[in-house]
């Protein structure tokens, strides 16, 4: 009976997608008096607004040569992180987070998601469609800022710089609106990349949308056993 109960709980956890959130206080910078962007970094289920503890990640601007400061915080009663960056010149800024691998015992795997977010400052839009050069990366084909709800978001998934076909992309809304999903199946939307690694999704609600392209590759040790790694190329996009 106990075994069945654990199995049911595990199944429930499996049904909910994990997302590493990297949410900036704004997706564009226009006002010279408001050039500091704050970032909320947490490991969570964004639609259901439940979280897990997250160990200290690293956050970078544009490349690994430019780390940003990090402070510990709380998100949904769990350990999370905050960072900030002050924008000084017009440009397109790409932020990404490298977390420590998270062991998910229920799924018997490690989760290693690298989220990124792209911010335009002072009207500059050059370069939003260029990759940072991450091992697993979502490169937008739709301008990833200044979007409306109802817009279609198109992007390409790259694996080692090459298009990744037939990859599952999980999509969730960061649900701060108290929306109730009709069924569990509605919480995480899934689209797959085509032969060119391209996927598209219509964001039907305002708010931050998380896209997680999942590629299982490699393994890591936990208590003497080897477990597969779920690598995630994540991207956060805001619809107004």
């Amino acid at each position, binding site marked *: 009976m106990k075994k069945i109960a654990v199995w049911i709980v595990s199944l429930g956890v499996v049904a909910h997608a994990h997302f590493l959130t990297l949410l900036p206080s704004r997706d564009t910078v226009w006002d010279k008096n408001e050039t500091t962007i704050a970032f909320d970094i947490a490991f969570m289920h964004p639609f259901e607004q439940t979280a897990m503890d997250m160990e200290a990640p690293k956050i970078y601007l544009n490349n690994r040569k430019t780390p940003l400061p990090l402070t510990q915080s709380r998100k949904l009663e769990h350990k999370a992180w905050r960072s900030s960056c002050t924008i*000084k*010149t*017009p440009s397109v800024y790409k932020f990404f987070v490298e977390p420590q691998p998270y062991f998910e015992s229920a799924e018997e795997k490690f989760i290693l998601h690298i989220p990124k977010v792209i911010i335009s400052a*002072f*009207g*500059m*839009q*050059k370069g939003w469609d260029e990759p940072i050069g991450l091992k697993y990366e979502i490169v937008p084909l739709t301008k990833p800022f200044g979007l409306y709800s109802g817009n279609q978001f198109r992007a390409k998934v790259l694996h080692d710089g090459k298009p990744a076909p037939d990859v599952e992309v999980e999509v969730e809304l960061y649900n701060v609106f108290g929306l109730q999903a009709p069924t569990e199946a509605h919480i995480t939307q899934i689209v797959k990349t085509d032969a060119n690694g391209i996927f598209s999704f219509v964001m039907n609600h305002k708010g931050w949308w998380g896209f997680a392209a999942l590629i299982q590759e490699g393994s890591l040790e936990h208590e003497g056993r080897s477990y597969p790694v779920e690598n995630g190329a994540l991207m956060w996009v805001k619809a107004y």
Partner: protein
Amino acid sequence: MIRYLFAFWLLLGTAWAHKINLFISQEGERVEIYSYFANGNPCKKCQLLIKNHDTILLKGVLNDEGKYQYLATHKNLEIIVNTEGGHSVKEEIETQNLHPQNLKSHLQSEQSKEQINAMLGLLLIFLIFFLLKKIKQ
């Protein structure tokens, strides 16, 4: 009617696509002017106009990087950039750490420029008369 609305919408879209931006930064009395399009192209050789209320302080041209460095002489500046195609952007700023001495020296140099111009004008007129007199002789 829908056709006209669509055409208007297209025109608006085109106008936005060519929108120029103006980014002004200040360090003391030095004002850095940078004008660019959304795609990152600089506003090359675009016309620059700097005004203090209704007084024109400078009529200049941006360089190939869409930039201009201006030494502020007045506290309130209106900076306007115009493209050949008729697009325009402007911003009003209040300069910081402006030294009154600079304003005084600026006014003096402007005054001396006017005096030099007047003297050159008089000299030119004198030369013309002198040459005419020589030709007649």
